[in-house]
C-alpha cells in the first residue's frame, strides 16, 4: 500500500487511464455501428427474372425490422460520435462526477436501443435463413442469396458495438467508484 501523503483535489492516475481507454474504445464502436447501418441500408438485390404479378427485388425497407435496425444503428453511431467530446473532457478533467454519470446513463440507453435493433434484425434473418413451416413462412434466403449474406454480415458490426458499449459502461462505473 503506497504510503504517500493524502493529496486533496488530485485525481488518481487510474481514472485518467480509464478515460484514455474509454477514448480509444469509442471509435471501435463507431466503426462497427456505422458499418452495419451502411451495409444494411445499401442492400438491393434484383433477381434476373420477372413476371407481371410478383416482385423479385429485395431491399432493407421491405421488412420493417430492418428499417428499425438501420435507424437504431444510425442513431447510436451519431450519439457515439458526439460522445467523443465527453471522452476528451474526461481525459482532461478526470474528477468530474456529474458528466460521467450522464455519460453512463446515455451509454446504457444507447446500448439498449442498439441491442433491440440487432435482436429484431437477427430474428428476421433467422426466419429468412430457415423459414418456418409451421406458420407457412418460407425461407427467402434460398432465392435472395446476396441480400441474405449482406444482411447477416451487417449484424456482426452492431453486436461488436453492443459489446464495446458494455465495456464502456463498466469503465465508467469503475472510474466513478474510484474517487
Amino acid at each position, binding site marked *: 500500500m503506497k504510503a504517500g*501523503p493524502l493529496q486533496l483535489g488530485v485525481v488518481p492516475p487510474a481514472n485518467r487511464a480509464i478515460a484514455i481507454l474509454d477514448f480509444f474504445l469509442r471509435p471501435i464502436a463507431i466503426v462497427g455501428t456505422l458499418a452495419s447501418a451502411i451495409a444494411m441500408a445499401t442492400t438491393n438485390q434484383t433477381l434476373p427474372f420477372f413476371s407481371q404479378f410478383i416482385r423479385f427485388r429485395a431491399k432493407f425497407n421491405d421488412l420493417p425490422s430492418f428499417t428499425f435496425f438501420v435507424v437504431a444503428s444510425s442513431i447510436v453511431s451519431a450519439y457515439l460520435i458526439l460522445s467523443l467530446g465527453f471522452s476528451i473532457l474526461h481525459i482532461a478533467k478526470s474528477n468530474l462526477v456529474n458528466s460521467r454519470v450522464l455519460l453512463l446513463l446515455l451509454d446504457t440507453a444507447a446500448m439498449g436501443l442498439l441491442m433491440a435493433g440487432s435482436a429484431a434484425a437477427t430474428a428476421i434473418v433467422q426466419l429468412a435463413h430457415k423459414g418456418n413451416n409451421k*406458420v407457412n413462412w418460407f425461407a427467402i434466403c434460398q432465392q435472395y442469396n446476396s441480400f441474405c449474406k449482406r444482411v447477416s454480415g451487417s449484424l456482426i458490426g452492431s453486436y461488436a458495438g453492443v459489446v464495446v458499449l458494455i465495456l464502456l459502461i463498466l469503465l465508467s462505473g469503475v472510474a466513478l467508484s474510484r474517487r
Partner: protein
Amino acid sequence: MEGETSAVNIVETPKERKGKAPLLAAPPGGSSSSKAVPVVVKPAATKGGYRRGLAVFDVVLRIAGVATALGAAIAMGSTDQTLPFFTQFFQFKASYDDLPAFTFFLIANAITASYLVLTIPISIVCILRPNATKPRVILMFFDTVMVALTTSAAGGAASIVYLAHNGNSDANWPAICQQFNDFCQKISGAVVASFLSVVILMALVVLSAFSL
C-alpha cells in the same frame, strides 16, 4: 482567552474508515503561499443517508423486475392454442416452441428473473453498508449484461410478433394473428412485460451509477 472554544471538523474518508489512510496529510503540492486552502467538508452521515435510500429503492425495483420477467416467461410459456378445425395438411396448433425466437425469449426471461432473485441479497448488503463500492460496481456490470440479454430477447420476440400481426407481403409471409387470436394476445403481452423489465433493469443501472 478563557472561554473561547474552537471546533475542529474531522472528516472521515473511506480510507480512514478501512484503516488504510496515511498517517500524515500534506496540503496539495506547491503551496508556498501561506493562504489557507479552503476545504469543503461533507459530513459522512448524509452521504451514507442518500445512498441508503437509493439502495432501498434498488431492492424494491429488483422485486418488481422479478415480477415482470417471470410474468413474461410464464405468459410466453403457457401459449398453446388449437383451432377447433383440422385438415390433413395444415397445422392448426400454435405454441411458443414453433418459433425459435420465442423459445429464446422464454429462456432469456427465465434467466433474468432468476438473476434478479439471486442479486436481492447483494442489494440488501448494499443497504447495510451504504459506502461500499465494490458490490455496487459488480452489480452494475451484471445488470448491464442483463439489460443486453433481456433487450435481445424482447426485441427478437417483438419483431416476430409484429410479423404475426401484420405479415409481410413482399416475402409472402401471412399474418397468423387473424386465426390464432388468443395465442397472439399472450405473446404480445409477454413482449410488453419483457420491455418493462428492460426499463427496470436500466433504472437499476442508473441507480447504481448515482450511488457510486
